[in-house]
């Protein structure tokens, strides 16, 4: 994204209101420079992006912590705009969360756009502005980017690829392999909101619901948790695709343990439960974009939950279960009926293109 910060030639502004992306916007010519300047620079504005180079140069992060984390992610959500967010804010939140789950402080993001010919400029601007706003709110700048345009039919509107980097403090060791029997499982709030919000706005399935996606950047919540838990914090994960069920199974397999959760303890909004009911979905398999699960040492669980509840994104945090010994690595659940069942990975596809 190396358009000059100040275009040398004066020319007419793009007709964002009724214009569409065409192949010239990806061809490296003036149209591309104009698209980048008027849509992306305008929305993302920060000193590193404004350098206008093929790469962003910024100071190595100061402070303690000799290790960096890096993540990459792709966003193909359909529909692009959904209740409670859009592909742009989702891309920023999702990437920040992947960095934050490693216990790191996010430092910078990149964003690469693959745009289908014919995509409305007004929608592209809306997405870019939403990304810029999400990045500013999070205090994590989008420092570099790229734009490609593909022929009509070769993509579906717009796809966004991101990368994120962050710094993790020395001494903080988090990882999916660290869960031990006796540890407690914490969830930061109600599950299933994002998946249901997406589903409610699918073209062939529209139903009225007040449910909004929970899409949010969780790095300030994880900061609070790290401060409260210290070495008692074993691992954090954001249960996106595959939902809570997939995340817990990942942890059980990686750590070589079993997990037992209590159905009654899992926070689920009544509207989400109702939507899952008539759609035949299990909320445990439904995606989240602003929730995390944490595995913590038993003795620190109460203090960490209390700290999370003091943060707006963790106000419904709860202990939902514990890590147990099980050489078969099952995730089991005590149902509201007092019976037992397995909480398994989802087989096949519950709902495609959720993020």
């Amino acid at each position, binding site marked *: 994204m190396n358009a000059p910060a100040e275009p040398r030639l004066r020319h007419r502004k793009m007709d964002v209101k009724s214009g569409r992306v065409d192949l010239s916007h990806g061809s490296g010519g003036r149209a591309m420079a104009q698209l980048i300047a008027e849509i992306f620079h305008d929305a993302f504005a920060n000193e590193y992006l404004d350098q206008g180079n093929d790469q962003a140069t910024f100071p190595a992060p100061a402070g303690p912590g000799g290790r960096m984390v890096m993540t990459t992610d792709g966003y193909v959500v359909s529909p692009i705009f959904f209740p409670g967010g859009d592909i742009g804010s989702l891309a920023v939140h999702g990437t920040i969360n992947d960095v934050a789950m490693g216990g790191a402080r996010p430092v910078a993001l990149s964003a690469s756009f693959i745009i289908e010919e014919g995509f409305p400029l007004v929608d592209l601007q809306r997405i870019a502005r939403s990304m810029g706003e999400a990045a500013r709110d999070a205090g994590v700048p989008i420092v570099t980017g790229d734009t490609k345009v593909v022929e009509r039919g070769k993509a579906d509107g717009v796809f966004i690829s991101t990368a994120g980097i962050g710094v993790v403090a020395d001494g903080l060791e988090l990882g999916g392999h660290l869960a031990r029997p006796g540890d407690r499982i914490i969830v930061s709030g109600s599950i299933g909101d994002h998946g249901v919000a997406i589903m409610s706005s699918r073209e*062939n*399935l529209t139903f009225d619901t007040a449910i909004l996606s929970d899409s949010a950047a969780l790095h300030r919540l994880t900061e609070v948790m790290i401060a409260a838990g210290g070495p008692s914090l074993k691992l954090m994960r954001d249960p996106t695709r595959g939902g809570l069920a997939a995340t817990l199974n990942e942890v059980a397999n990686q750590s070589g343990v079993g997990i037992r959760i209590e159905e009654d303890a899992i926070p689920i909004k*009544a509207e989400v*439960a*109702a939507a899952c*009911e008539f759609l035949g979905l299990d909320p445990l398999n439904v995606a989240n974009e602003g929730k995390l699960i944490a595995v913590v040492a038993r003795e620190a669980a109460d203090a960490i939950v209390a700290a999370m509840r003091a943060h707006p994104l963790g106000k419904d945090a709860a202990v939902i279960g514990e890590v147990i010994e099980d050489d*078969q690595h*099952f995730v*089991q659940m*005590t*149902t*509201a*009926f*007092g*019976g*037992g*069942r*397995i909480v*398994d990975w989802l*087989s*096949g596809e519950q709902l495609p293109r959720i993020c």
Partner: protein
Amino acid sequence: MKYVDEYRDGKLARAIAETIRAEADPAKTYHFMEFCGGHTHAISRYGLEDLLPANVRMIHGPGCPVCVLPIGRIDEALELAKNRQVTLLTYADLMRVPGSKGRSLLKAKAEGCDIRMIYSTLDAIRIAEENPDREVVFFAIGFETTTPPTALAIKTAEKKGLTNFSIFCNHVLTPSAIRAILEAPATGKLPPVKIQGFIGPAHVSVVIGSKPYETFVEEFGQRIVVSGFEPLDVVQSVLMLVRQVNEGRAAVENQYIRAVVPDGNVAAQKLCDDVFDLRDRFEWRGLGYIENSALKLRDEYARFDAEKRFAVERIHASDNPACECGVILIGAKQPADCKLFGTVCTPETPMGSCMVSSEGACAAHWTYGRFRDKAKKQDERRRAS
């Protein structure tokens, strides 16, 4: 959730389970079959097995439409989808069902066939209207519950004068399958199984009523309790069956009185009668050929029949010989008894019908209940030695 939460009251369920425990005679064993996949799912999903005493055993029946669809029909649908004029529409749970040679609709879609998932037959009509240059074929499947919507789609297509819409009809009939299971000992077609009562279908009975089951009382001395799909419904129905056995009675009883009446939904039945006719016989995966057990379009609606329209050739394909779905479907064996279960046959790579849909006996056990197997096997070994 009003009208749902009331039927998921764990405390009440535990109280009823206590009553079952108190009333079930420890000297007797009670074998009940829940016919429907919906009940199988509820039993597994809520862990109801753990609530029942050991001598009350639930047998998971064949009432899962995806599970009983024979491989050959999937192969036939795949042939249909290969036709470049055809847009094949299907409910999502059929997409992964394996045909022969590991093929499936999902794979065919990836290879470029125009196969789309829909949620209702109204979507099918809409797609046909919007794509007049395509031959739109709806893969119709299900028991009596999903038959009326298909009939309505045919009527709607007729009214709208649609010439590019047809259905690949696989609708099957519940009472015929129950009869096949009950006649199994006499015909020798299926191994005999000791069933002392049925948990009768919920949604199916809303359409057909509770009367069609009366013949099973008269002919076979069977007990049927028509039950709702919620966990509390199931527990209560088990208690009603236990009481019938204890009192030496056999009758059709209706636990699902909030939705089922003896005559069923007469308007829906009339609609289906107008559109559909009985097939002489139809293959059920795991159960073999059963007479008068499925529906086809009446001759006056032949133009909507994809089998005639595209001259679909019958394909017969056999299950893996090691697959025990047939005996599992009638309760003669349990999922964990099958050598394929959990080894080569899992929900990701189903070999047999019971593993295909989440309502199938094996898939339900794999997804929700397999954590019990290890302890159970150890227990059996201990007892044997």
